[in-house]
């Protein structure tokens, strides 16, 4: 069975939410980290039909959208926190450029909020 999707019928999302979705994919594709919405669930971007945990995207007022990524690092780490953050920023900038939003992406803040060992990953 073939399922076709009419992209024109897909609900439109703002660039802010679209960029948050790009960031969510960048995190998911990055080994050694996971997104986290935090213990109170406040680190997330909410669109009309989406909730994107671990990503805060906000207009910066200068025509750019700043992004804040909240992460859990998986032990053992593949480098230092700063190296992981730089790798993730590079991935996000590439992905945003591919999605045609490279010029809109502002500062990318990365926060490491927890570390999980093998036995703690569920």
């Amino acid at each position, binding site marked *: 069975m073939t399922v076709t999707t009419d992209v024109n019928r897909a609900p439109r999302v703002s660039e802010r939410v679209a960029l948050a979705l790009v960031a969510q994919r960048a995190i998911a594709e990055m080994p050694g980290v996971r997104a986290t919405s935090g213990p109170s669930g406040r680190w997330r971007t909410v669109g009309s039909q989406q909730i994107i945990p671990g990503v805060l995207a906000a207009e910066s007022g200068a025509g750019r959208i700043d992004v804040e990524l909240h992460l859990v*690092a998986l*032990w053992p*780490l593949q480098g*230092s*926190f*700063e190296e992981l*953050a*730089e790798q993730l*920023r590079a991935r996000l*900038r590439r992905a945003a450029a591919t999605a045609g939003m490279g010029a809109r992406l502002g*500062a*990318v*803040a*990365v*926060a*490491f*909020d*927890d*570390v999980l*060992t093998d036995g*703690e990953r569920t």
Partner: protein
Amino acid sequence: MTDKIARPVSSAPQGKDIARRDDVVPLSSELGRTTIGEGVVTRVAGIAAREVSGVHDLGGGTARAIGSVTQKVGLGDPRTQGVSVETGEKEAAVDLTLVIDYGESIPRIAGAVREQIIKRVEGITGLRVTEVNITVNDLYFPGDDEPDEAPRVA
């Protein structure tokens, strides 16, 4: 029993001279800011200590007893039990309470734990570890975890 490290550049006693931040360690970057939660540094120090053979557990007897209760009611994080970290902009000081396996050399274990914590925390977070204060609170004997003998009478 307390075993302290004195790094040559810093003389900060118990890390009290470390410029404090509230709960995060910020790292500058032209493309954005990287922050490491203080709890994360505590976690790294605790994981590093547990990597050393001969370390049975972290935390004192009372802390572990209270910890087991608070965990049962959903309070407290067992993963940071026995570890206290004070972080500044560029430095960190670690206080640690250990339970060591009986028969192991306490000085050797303390030295290995100190080296491992410094290696991990400095390598992963970029913070300079100014001191690692280790308190060996208890020794673990094989069989300590086994339940008490069954009553002799019904």
